[in-house]
């Protein structure tokens, strides 16, 4: 599985400007609803908010992976958003977050979900990749970084 196969240029947003956890999750839900119109924006937002209530998806080093399991999702979809300035996200290391790799995944398939998580972890563990994500100035540049894998 490749990260680029889970996303598209329309799902990659560079240099967005938000200042709160709630606002960035709303933005993700709007973006996801545009790509998956059969899922309501409110249902997507609720799935993301409910997951954050169980514990922040801020996994450290300025990265968060907000996600929602939704029975209406046909396959895993990733939305990659880089914020112009880092947002307080209650992350594990208390560092504010500027890289968001959001996931809408089908409910039920545990193996597929673990595979999806390892696919994104494999890219995000590379500090140079994160640096390139942060440097991207346009959505197109951001998606080029994501798509440039061996």
């Amino acid at each position, binding site marked *: 599985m490749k990260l680029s196969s889970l996303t598209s240029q329309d799902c990659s947003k560079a240099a967005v400007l938000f200042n709160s956890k709630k606002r960035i999750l709303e933005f993700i839900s709007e973006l996801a609803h545009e790509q998956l119109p059969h899922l309501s924006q409110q249902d997507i937002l609720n799935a993301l908010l409910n997951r954050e209530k169980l514990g922040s998806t801020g996994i*450290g*080093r300025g990265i968060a992976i907000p996600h929602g399991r939704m029975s209406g999702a046909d396959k895993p979809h990733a939305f990659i958003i880089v914020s112009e300035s880092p947002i307080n996200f209650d992350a*594990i290391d208390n560092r504010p977050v500027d890289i968001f790799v959001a996931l809408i995944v089908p409910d039920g398939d*545990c*193996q597929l*979900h*673990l595979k999806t998580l390892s696919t994104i*972890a494999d890219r995000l563990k590379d500090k140079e990749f994160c640096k390139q994500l942060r440097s991207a100035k346009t959505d197109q540049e951001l998606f080029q970084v994501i798509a440039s894998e061996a």
Partner: protein
Amino acid sequence: MYAENTFLIQNKLGLHARAATVLAQLALQFDAKIMLYQDDKEAEGDSVLALMLLESSQGKEVRVVCEGPDATAALNAIGELIAQRFHEQE
């Protein structure tokens, strides 16, 4: 101090993001270097990204190796967390 043991992943969802985060938060509390091994993969216990790379699913055996002053306490705590299915229902 050195301590190691092998634990069976019992929760239905395996080492998904939330379970990995809970484990990493626990690992950070101890003065010990904590490594997890599964099949041919290894991960630092305090790194959520590394733990997610293990793709540990229900039924997998994970070897936990702890080194440092808190090695035994860390191993016991991690073993208990895994046995309690990361506080998940199933």
